[in-house]
């Protein structure tokens, strides 16, 4: 990646991050978004984060596969379902992915 493209990405992310966070507090008191739009916005994280999890677990390049990271994330899912703390989940996910990889998965 060229340095220009990298710094353009920095600027883009900085603007997006500031705009999305400051618009809400500025808007309250004046006009508000409707209940339908609010419902869609409230559901966006579920759609996008599930897409990111699925991609991280199964997509390598342009094919779907099962590998060490898939297995490590399955372990992480078990911990999350048991309501384990987030730090433990992250460490166990990395360690188990590393072990599955070492085992040749």
């Amino acid at each position, binding site marked *: *990646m060229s340095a220009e493209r990298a710094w353009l990405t920095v600027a883009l992310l900085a603007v*997006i991050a500031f705009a999305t966070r400051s618009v809400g507090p500025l808007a309250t008191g004046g006009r508000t978004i409707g209940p339908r739009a609010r419902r869609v916005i409230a559901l966006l994280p*579920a759609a*996008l984060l*599930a897409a990111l999890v699925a991609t991280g677990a199964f997509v390598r390049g342009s094919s779907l596969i099962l590998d060490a990271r898939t297995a490590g994330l399955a372990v992480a899912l078990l911990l999350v379902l048991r309501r384990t703390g*987030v730090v433990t989940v*992250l460490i166990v996910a990395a360690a188990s992915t590393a*072990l599955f990889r070492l085992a040749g998965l």
Partner: protein
Amino acid sequence: VPAVSASPTVSRLREGARAATPFTVAAVLLGTSFGIAAREAGIPAGAAIAMSALANAGSAQIAAVAILAGGGSLAAAGIAALLINLRFLPMGMAMGPSLPRSRIRRALYGAAIVDASWILARIGNGRFDRHLLLGSTAVQWVGWVAGTAIGALGRDVLPDPSTFGVDAVFPAFFLAIIVPELRSAEPLVVAVIGAAIALSMALIAPAGAGIVLAGVAALIGLRRAEAR
């Protein structure tokens, strides 16, 4: 040791920082993972650290960098980051009535919203404590930027990060924050559809397109609202 009586403001800043400790540790791990991912995508260490310092947007940053690393366009990366960060819109609106009247100060307090801080700053009856928010965000920001620096600069001296399973850290974090939200039917359906869109698009479309298109699944919210 003489007793030091802190002002209420300072003590609430401290209280926010203390409550955010586990998220700060997580931020260091995530930041390290992001710093490495950014370098692997060809982003210089300085730019990666600047991005974390200025944007402070973990999920949006990692999604954008993953899309760029897969050969996706800057536009696709920006749209994905925007969609992921749209959740701050309703969160900021909820916080609005608890903030000072000055528009500049409202915007700046809004810029301090991150997921964990927003949750920790709730004090009941729909009210928020802006000092709890600031204290909580400040320590997480330090952790995120420091982690990014460790990952981005350490990339040159560390062996292959996949040896340590670093590539699993971010998907695991997304699992940890999204699974508790899926206890009711509607978000669960949206998540399954979003994942299905992302997986099927990955086979036929350029990198990142599937993640952006997965946002379409949230339109289910319209249907339910109309049924009422």
